[in-house]
């Protein structure tokens, strides 16, 4: 008898869990809010990189550029973020000026990385 009650208890825990998930995922799914820059879609990130590149082209402040890029980078290395933006830029037909600015930034970051590792 005790075994039957225990089984019923566990079964209802599972049913409750399923009901909770259905409520959270189907009936009242969570509104997407309070997201971070790093979770943005790739094309938005690429536009962000364009802006950072243009700022860098004006002030040549690599540290600030890295700070800005860190905002949209999930890992530690910001160079892949710029490289991905270059690919997106090529795919979406960014202007030569924008591509140049991103390439300049990518080169500066790579050079800084090389100098730092030496």
């Amino acid at each position, binding site marked *: 008898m005790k075994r039957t009650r225990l089984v019923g208890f566990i079964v209802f825990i599972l049913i*409750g*869990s399923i009901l909770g998930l259905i409520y959270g995922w189907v009936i009242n799914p969570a509104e997407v809010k309070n997201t971070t820059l790093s979770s*943005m879609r790739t094309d938005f990130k690429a536009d962000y990189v364009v802006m950072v590149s243009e*700022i860098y082209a004006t002030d040549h402040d690599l540290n600030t550029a890295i700070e800005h890029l860190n905002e949209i980078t999930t890992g530690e290395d910001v160079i892949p973020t710029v490289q991905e933006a*270059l690919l997106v830029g090529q795919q979406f037909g960014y202007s030569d*000026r924008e591509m140049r600015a991103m390439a300049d930034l990518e080169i500066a970051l790579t050079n800084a990385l090389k100098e730092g590792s030496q």
Partner: protein
Amino acid sequence: MKSKQGQWHLLTGLLLGVVLGAAFSLWVLPVHYIDTEPATLRSADRETYREIVAKAYLIEADTNRALARIALLKDPNPASALIAQAQQELANSGESQLARGLALLGAAINQPSLRITPLPENGATGAIPPLSTVTSTPGEGKVTVTITQAATRTPIATFTPRPTPTPSPTLGAPFVLVKQETICDPLPQISLIEIEVQDVKGKPLPGVKIQLSVVNGGSETFYTGLYPEIDDGYANYAMAAGSEYALRVGEAGQLVSGIKIPTCNAGADPGSVYLLFQQP
């Protein structure tokens, strides 16, 4: 004995299950958002995004593009958000250039025809190699940038700034005139109406709307904050000889009329007019 125990254990199990499910989804395996839009960004990241857009706006001077970027945030009142961030930046003794960009962009929302002078790109050598190819190696996730030739950077077109910054809501009490002076020393080359706008604590306010009308003429609107090198709450207007002006600072500020080019040196030279407005 059996009937006394009842079925409460089932209800307990159900509730326990709901709690476990919620805890699992909230803490053990929380939702990880990907491919989101700027409109869903949290407050701090929205400010960072505005900052980057404003800085890029000062460089590109592309008002439409900057406005399109700001529109992605879907702020209920983007102009207010930008002006507030500009004022916050100034209050925090942050970058005045950034504050200027934010204020200008806030102004551009209500005046999309606003044109600014782009900041020059600061090429280290003056010769920028153009990007020739961007290649990706499948499987390795590696991107290679190849530069094949050098070329001289094409100069960017410059736009002449117009003395017409922006609209933005003026918050707080109406502005009143607290000081009016004639400027003769030094003798101005152009007769100006020089206006400074401050809040109740005497802090300069950028982005404040100034409506000016010419007696028997037209009217113009301009904004404070376009001359941060002078003062964040500063604006000016060049007067024409023989004209009389009236102006109002903010939406419901005091109307100051009868403004004309003053005379200096016993009527020999034209001077300028200085007006200080403050919130009471």
